[in-house]
């Protein structure tokens, strides 16, 4: 019994030392990690709303709807558009896309936040052709409104990725549905 207590004590001691060391490390890295998270979101928002000021994209939460409003200048004047996260079931994951639109409802930019599709197939939704800057698949959405968001396979004119229709459809449809909802929420775009 005494031995067990002794051994337990040693283990406790070591664990405590470890815990202490870790809390120190944690205090250093925590702000860094949070910063990274914020930066990632900020980057995505800026891709979606390239004309907005990085400090003037404001989250809005109404009943059930969550979106962002982007302004031209830091003092939140000059509304340039909205951004929201579209979610759709892809081939092997839920694909989350940050979508930005201008005030007329036309897409100004997109950025995939999360996807675990098949490498080389579904991941082509983020593929950047060599020498280009932006992913070719998402570039097709630029300046479209939700009525124009339809894959070739579904009778529209957005080229789907060969071999990855499911992922292509997931992105396209989720953006279209999201846009429709946002339009309802805002009571229509001004065009």
């Amino acid at each position, binding site marked *: 019994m005494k031995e067990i207590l002794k051994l337990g004590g040693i283990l406790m001691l070591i664990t405590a030392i470890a815990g202490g060391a870790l809390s120190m490390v944690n205090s250093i890295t925590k702000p860094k990690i949070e910063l*990274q998270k914020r930066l990632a979101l900020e980057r995505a928002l800026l891709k979606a709303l390239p004309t907005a000021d990085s400090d003037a994209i404001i989250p809005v939460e109404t009943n059930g709807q969550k979106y962002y409003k982007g302004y031209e200048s830091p003092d939140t004047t000059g509304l340039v558009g909205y951004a929201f996260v579209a979610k759709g079931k892809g081939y092997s994951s839920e694909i989350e896309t940050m979508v930005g639109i201008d005030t007329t409802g036309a897409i100004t930019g997109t950025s995939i936040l999360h996807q675990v599709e098949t490498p080389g197939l579904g991941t082509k939704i983020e593929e950047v052709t060599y020498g280009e800057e932006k992913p070719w698949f998402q570039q097709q959405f630029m300046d479209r409104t939700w009525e124009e968001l339809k894959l070739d396979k579904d009778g529209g004119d957005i080229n789907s990725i060969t071999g990855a229709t499911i992922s292509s459809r997931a992105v396209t449809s989720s953006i279209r549905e999201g846009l429709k909802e946002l339009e309802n929420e805002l009571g229509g775009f001004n065009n």
Partner: protein
Amino acid sequence: MSLFKEFFKGFYDENPVFRLALGLCPALAVSNSVQNAVGMGAAATFVLLCSNFIVSLIRKGVPKKIRIPIYIVVIATFVTIVDLAMAGFAPDLHKSLGIFVPLIVVNCVILGRAEAFAGKNNVLYSLFDGLGMGIGFTLALTVVGVVRELLGDGKLWGIPIMGANFEPVLLFILPPGAFLTLGLFLGLFNWIDSRMKK
């Protein structure tokens, strides 16, 4: 001379993955690209080095009966440090390695070295052993990663190098490709070994 040996044995003779068949799970899971492989290798090497250091330092004072839990605590501590640091400074890598970073805790290479080497040798030797083994582990992951990324994606370190007409063999970056590549490498090294013995 023998420090030298402790250092280099992990490269080939006692390569943890190819010869000792240890650390196979990460060798499969994160070898789909060279970047991931090197990242994981570096993380594991750091943990290996640190845990070998601490373990060989405290080995005289550790009661035999609870040495394994103590080693695990030591290892888990360094793993957490790596995990936190990676999340803070290399978020993309952290994301693509996923849960395999915390899983370094149960990586048998590390516990294995603590138990088989650091628990029995002095600090200097243990450091060299840890470093050699870590580099050996990294090398192995990288070799598998090179094959998989090259064939499966036509790239190395994310740079396309197989030419525009190459149609990548997707299977190699899919899970089956990991098993097949590693299996073929293990067979290849067995074969080389039997050849050299002859």
